[in-house]
């Protein structure tokens, strides 16, 4: 048995925290031990049940195929479609995203990311108001007041609190958790709320009212508020408002509890306004808790390539963006796309029912390391190597910081980027063939 190789400071490609202090031991080409990572990250890096071979559906059954057969079939599906959807992109590298955008341009498709069922409303809020943010290290070094609103990092981003937020320490925050005030706003108790100094339990769907009330209290117009707002007593809210105003450096982290409850992007719009106004009194920043490790990255790449961060329609040759019209869920629910390529995301498990049904009614190409409910309705399944474990690449942390993912072990499978290149080449070949036949 060969000696274990220790890889230090690897970047974990699980969640938007992109923890970059992971030490990994590799023995005989396999990961044998993972240190510093949380359970979620460890499990991903250690590896589990993978799709072994490409598959193509024949007579209703997925049967094993070669990669080149799978690329040819995928290209056929995309070329036959008048408006294909290329969806996912949250759990792969920016290098794959670049190839995907090129493919979407080439076949005249719509490219959308999982943000559409996640922080898409945050993006729309930012289009309305801008994003007053910071890198996570700024919060670590300076924040004495932190609000978690509609998010539960203790479960979803397990190392967030220790590395970046409530329990971290830095230059101006040497006492760590002791020196901070932590406020949690949610509709239920969570593991995160148990670590809070103040837990404000609000009535589901009342985020907008509560934020508005805080804005009024901070503006000194609290006297016209009712006694109870969103299930919270006005006096308690006034306390919170006073805490926010007296912060030396405050940070709000928000999650899907506010982006996908009643009000959606309006909630974010309102929260962004709250933060802008707080900056007239003190220093405040706000940040979405991005879920998948590179859901931020696809937004960045898409923005610099097309001008828009999500839901980009390339069917007219030039990028067109109108969420509500060009977002994956709307397109599928309205049966407005006629083929789909799903990559690095499990669409079926996360889409609303009508949308998933839409997906079931059209040809689907899946590129993923793992079998999941999307596999069941796919016509072509292409397994890939895992970025950040088996492939190098770029990912953007939840605060927009780009980091280089490492390759820890070899894989016999191609990367997402290589697979997309293969499909792109098949698209070119099939087009050429068709052109030759026509001539």
């Amino acid at each position, binding site marked *: 048995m060969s000696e274990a190789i220790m890889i230090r400071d690897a970047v974990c490609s699980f969640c938007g925290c992109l923890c970059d202090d992971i030490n990994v031991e590799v023995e005989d080409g396999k990961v044998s031990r993972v240190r510093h990572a949380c359970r979620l990250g460890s499990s991903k890096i250690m590896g589990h049940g993978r799709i072994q071979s490409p598959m193509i559906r024949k007579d209703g059954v997925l049967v094993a195929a070669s990669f080149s057969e799978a690329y040819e079939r995928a290209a056929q599906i995309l070329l036959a479609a008048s408006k294909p959807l290329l969806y996912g992109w949250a759990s792969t590298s920016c290098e794959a995203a670049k190839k995907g955008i090129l493919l979407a341009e080439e076949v005249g498709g719509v490219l959308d990311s999982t943000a559409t069922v996640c922080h898409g409303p945050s993006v729309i809020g930012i289009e309305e108001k801008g994003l007053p943010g910071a890198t996570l290290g700024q919060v670590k070094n300076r924040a004495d007041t932190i609000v978690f609103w509609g998010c539960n990092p203790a479960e979803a981003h397990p190392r967030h609190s220790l590395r*970046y937020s409530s329990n971290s320490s830095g230059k101006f925050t040497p006492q760590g958790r002791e020196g901070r005030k932590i406020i949690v706003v949610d509709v239920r108790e969570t593991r995160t709320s148990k670590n809070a100094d103040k837990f404000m339990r609000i009535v589901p769907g009342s985020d907008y009212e509560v934020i508005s009330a805080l804005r009024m209290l901070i503006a000194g117009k609290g006297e016209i508020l009712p006694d109870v707002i969103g299930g919270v007593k006005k006096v308690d809210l006034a306390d919170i408002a006073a805490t926010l105003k007296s912060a030396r450096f405050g940070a709000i982290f928000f999650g899907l509890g506010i982006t996908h409850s009643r009000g959606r992007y309006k909630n974010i719009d309102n929260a962004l306004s709250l933060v802008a106004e707080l900056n007239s009194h003190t220093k405040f920043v706000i940040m979405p808790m991005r879920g998948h490790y590179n859901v931020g990255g696809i937004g*960045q790449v898409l923005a*610099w390539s097309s001008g828009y961060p999500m839901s980009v329609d390339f069917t007219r040759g030039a990028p067109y963006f109108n969420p509500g019209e060009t977002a994956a869920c709307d397109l599928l629910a309205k049966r407005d796309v006629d083929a789909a390529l799903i990559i690095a995301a499990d669409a079926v498990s996360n889409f609303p029912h009508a949308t998933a049904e839409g997906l079931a009614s059209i040809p689907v190409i899946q590129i993923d390391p793992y079998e999941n409910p999307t596999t069941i309705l796919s016509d072509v399944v292409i397994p890939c190597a895992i970025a950040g474990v088996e492939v190098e690449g770029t990912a953007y942390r939840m605060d927009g910081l780009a980091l280089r993912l490492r390759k820890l072990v070899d894989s016999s499978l191609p990367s997402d980027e290589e697979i997309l290149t293969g499909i792109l080449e098949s698209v070119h070949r099939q087009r050429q063939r068709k052109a030759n036949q026509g001539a």
Partner: protein
Amino acid sequence: MIIRGGIVYDPANGIYGDEMDLFIDKGRMVESAKGEEIDARGLLVMPGGVDAHSHIAGKKVNTGRIMRPDDARLGTQPRTAVCRPSTGYTVPNCYAMGYRYARMGYTTAFEAATPILEARHTHEELEEIPIIDKGALTLFGNNWQVMECVRDKDLSKLAAYVAWGLRAARGYGVKIVNPGGGEAWGFGTNVKGVNDAVPNFDVTPAEIIRGLAEANEMLRLPHSIHLHFNNLGKPGNYTTAIETLDMLKDIKPSRMRQVVHVAHMQFSAYGGTSWRDFESKAPAIADYFNGHSHATMDMGQLLFGSATTMTADAPLEYGNARLTHNKWSNHDIELEESSGVVPMAYFRKMLVNAVQWAIGLELALLVKDPWKVLLTTDHPNGSPFVNYPEVITLLMSRPKREAEMATLHDQVPKRTTLAGIEREMDWTDIAIMTRAAPARILGLEDKGHLGPGADGDVSIYDLRPEEVDTSQDHALVKKSLATAKYTIKGGVVVSKEGQILATPPGRTFWVDAAVPQPEADRVMVDLEEKFARYYSVQMANYAVQDAYLPHGKAILAGLSISRGVA
């Protein structure tokens, strides 16, 4: 390649409108060559344009795109057999940046401000911009390590850190933005002048600027410090500008160039005590530049219409957002910087905007030596770079200026001296301000001129300098400058009459400055502590990896000359 019979303006080589043939071989200018012939008889020929200050890549540019889908729609063009799609006006997508610079005859542009920590993102975007050569200036003015070295008066350690930071960022030069103010903004405040102490760091902006200027010269960097003044954008700030410049006048440059380049001077040439009595102090600034030789500037010209302000001067952007009730993005970068982005529109009838418009022109026209003034709009802060032809015609034509002034707020002649300025620039002035001077100021030896060995970057315009009256025919001049007849980049015709013909990848210049090992080791002790305690990333993951500069071009500099030339 042979370019036949053009009227050539190559001021760096003392050529001012001579009819001559030019030759390019293997991407460089040579004394004779064979191959493709381009007929440029009687036409205006200049080196490819060089933009030394433009916000073209990185986090704040992309933030501008993300918060402005309204802007993206303005510039939409579909993909073609050669081109990727274009979008955007003030914040174009990466592809549009390359195509639009090339269409105008520009072949080089430098991103003006990148924090080290976020340089990886900047290089991702730079690499995606086709055709043009690029570089990125690196932000140092609010950096904890810098401020600690300055506080300890440890100049050699500071120089070693600057060299390390440039290498980590794959950066080209030292950018300083509102020194100390960005750190103060970490707790929501600002510094008010160059002698105002930076909270928690026991240094002043003046000490930071001077320290970095001295370190810059110790390292013999190709470019000088590139400075965005404190108090930028505020009435009365011209005194800060002059005070700052004056404290740098005794520093000896290590190369044949300025000691300080002032970014977008227009935004720091303001008189008055408030927006109410706001007025131009361009004449005082111009006097200073005319009387001193250690400083250069770029205009930062403002034009009416849409802009997107983006800067590492974060408190300024918060002020912009509050003033205009516009949307506001802010982004603080741990241990290094802060920054902000706010959309903006400038109006002819808004007195402040009209005076700002006049100030940029006054500066360019009142400074006698065109080698000291670069033509920029601080893209996209004053206006998008596609409007350079508008700026050029304003400088070349007094009748155009008069016609424009007639449409402005009627107080402009009282608040500025523009109406009385007779100077009309000629093609030599323009070739200097858009080609020769930016290359010299940046220290790019192979750019901005057409001598043997220079890069084969040439722009040819459908204008006959010997016939056209640039004073009267300004509309024709503007139209012709907006779309070069030919843009040649590295010996390849990349654009012809507005059509992009080829999209070769551009190179990215960065500076690799050597320092003695003991100095580097001393810095490392400090940095190891900073990464262990303060940064949210590991040192091993901090520096930009080679993978991000597939077309990188290192320029060597530094304290030790043993590494020789590239």
